[in-house]
């Protein structure tokens, strides 16, 4: 494990991307990370994806919003949060890249666009990164923390900025935009065959809409591509820290290991690993707990020693798995957070976590 601390990491980086599977406290950890930075005097903003309702209410961000809401509190820095609105972020991206209002409206009103912006897998990742880039570029923030959508595949998130430019790189796009008279006006014979076959699968009007959609993007490719490249550069250098959140359960730790492997395939590494929900230590070894359970088995202490053995067994297993994960991420800062009595619903709860992360 790295000898650096999580607090040092927050002081050095400008972007923190919080990754992990669902159900491990990723959103809470993201918010607590931004709060920890605010407590250290930085101007921090957190982009949340789908916060639990009570936490969102407590932060004043229960409505989807595309501008950060400042959360007041007794910290020297600045803390703000927003709940990502995928659809309107996508609309902004289109408007910003369109050559004029007409082109923007043509795209925004197409049903194919609404499909793409609403349901295409990866759209949420893409827009989270767009929002990240926008907040970073604004210069208003020292640290941008991004909570990522729950996904198994870290690379899906890393590839997200290229989603649109890759779609526009599609050979079909090139074929259909070569002509401009809809599906059956496509000049190229081979393309026509493929597109006609496609129409048999999904129906001609779907293909028509797709073609019109692609044609409406004419001239916007470069803007998307440049943005994707700039964002990838930001995520790929020392300005950005990837923070992996896990719980000590074996299945989520397996996912964490898988995530580490994948992120390394992109020549990146996790700067920190945060393990939430650690069980309390009993102060006894597992063997001692087992012996005690045997010696108390026939006494009034049978129940309590069973409780001890259960806890010691589970806690020892947690410790082993966390040690394995630490070994797999030798360059990362490791921070553990104990299992808390209740879910975090308010800023005070976040402060407890922020303190545990930076202690």
């Amino acid at each position, binding site marked *: 494990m790295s000898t650096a601390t999580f607090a040092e990491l927050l002081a050095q980086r400008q972007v923190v991307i919080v990754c992990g*599977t*669902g*159900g*491990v406290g990723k959103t809470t950890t993201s918010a607590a990370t931004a709060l920890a930075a605010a407590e250290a005097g930085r101007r921090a903003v957190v982009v949340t994806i*789908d916060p*639990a*309702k009570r936490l969102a209410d407590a932060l004043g961000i229960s409505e989807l919003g595309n501008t950060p809401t400042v959360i007041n509190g007794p910290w020297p820095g600045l803390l703000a949060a927003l709940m990502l609105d995928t659809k309107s972020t996508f609309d902004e991206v289109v408007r910003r890249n369109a050559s004029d209002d007409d082109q923007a409206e043509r795209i925004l009103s197409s049903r*194919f666009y609404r*499909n*793409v912006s609403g*349901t*295409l897998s990866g759209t949420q990742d893409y827009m989270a990164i767009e929002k990240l880039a926008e907040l970073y570029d604004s210069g208003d923030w020292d640290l941008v923390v991004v909570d990522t959508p*729950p996904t*198994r595949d870290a690379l899906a998130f890393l590839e997200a900025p290229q989603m649109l430019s890759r*779609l526009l790189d*599609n*050979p*079909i*796009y090139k074929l259909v935009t070569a002509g401009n008279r809809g599906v059956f006006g496509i000049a190229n014979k081979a393309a026509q065959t*493929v597109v006609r*076959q*496609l129409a*048999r*699968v*999904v*129906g*001609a*009007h*779907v*293909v028509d809409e*797709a073609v019109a959609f692609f044609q409406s993007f004419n001239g916007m490719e470069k803007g998307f591509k440049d943005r994707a490249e700039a964002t990838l550069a930001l995520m790929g250098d020392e300005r950005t820290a990837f923070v992996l959140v896990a*719980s000590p*359960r*074996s*299945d*989520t730790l397996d996912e964490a290991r898988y995530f580490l492997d994948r992120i390394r395939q992109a020549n990146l590494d996790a700067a920190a690993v945060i393990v939430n929900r650690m*069980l*309390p230590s*009993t*102060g*006894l070894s597992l063997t*001692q707990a087992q012996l*005690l359970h045997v010696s*108390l088995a026939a*006494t*009034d*202490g*049978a*129940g*309590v020693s069973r*409780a*001890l053995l*259960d*806890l*010691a067994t*589970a806690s020892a*297993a947690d410790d082993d798995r966390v040690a394995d994960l630490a070994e797999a991420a030798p360059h990362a800062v490791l921070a553990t957070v104990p299992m808390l*009595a*209740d*879910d975090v619903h308010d800023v005070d709860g976040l402060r407890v976590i922020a303190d545990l992360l930076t202690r």
Partner: protein
Amino acid sequence: MDPGRFFASSRVLIVAGKGGVGKTVSAATIASAASRSGRSVLLVEVAGRSASAPIFGVEPQGYEQVTAVDETEQDDPPRGRIVLQSITPDQALMEWLTTHGFKGIVTRMASSGILEVVATATPGIKDLLVLGRIKAFESEGSFDLIVVDAPAAGHALGFLRSPAGVRDAARTGTIHRQAVEVLDLISDPTRCQVVLVTIPEETPVNELIETSFAIEDEMGVRLGPVVVNSVLPTLAGLDADLVSLDVSDAERNALQTAVTFRAGRAALQDEQLTRLGAELPLDQFRLPQLFSTTIGPDELAVLTEALLAEIEALPEVES
């Protein structure tokens, strides 16, 4: 209720829940309990990774079917079998195109990027085709029961919404017909039910309640009982007087830590289970928390017994 009768109530059980609640283990436990009741079960994984093979102690085999359990020779009482099948969305799309008259151009479609366009043009098509594959297993009738380990988290909703989405997006064409057929399957409670999985904690219970209303009200899909995983077994004697025990101070402290922790978790859990019961009028199958490191065949056997006992505790329903 007699477990055999319970498992005969519909041919397809879709097991869904957010990540980290033990959905895969629950699906395996349901399959195992059905097999114990004499059913022949196909356990389908759609996440693209054979996570259930180790639970049965077998090697994952990619996309081939693997027999995980076969006790069909035993007939007093009759036992069944479990076959594992993994389906990925990409594979389902390729397969569907191959069997629907596009055999010659599937490779060309893949390499030209047209598949990406097909998928973009019709959101949900891949999920739909995974469900289409499951429907095909159902119509073939080689298995009494098909248990589906559905995608995690919010993806479960997207997964179940996909047929209606595709039906409306592609108003004609072969894919439209496929969407209608799959809708017929998932909206017919005698053929398909959704089993939601959660753990007795606040956020997972909230999400389960939200998801269940979305599934029943918006999609018209029938919900079966809810599986609540990781329920701490009740422990007698937690109120013992620690001072009177003949133990060292360190041991007494450890016992105190364990008792406080256990009692605290148990209280939180009871609160959530009560709330779940009050807000969601569905039967609950409670599976015990196991304190073991990994879930293998031994742990599965414990969970299977627990599930069978929960099913037997259900009242008989007149049909």
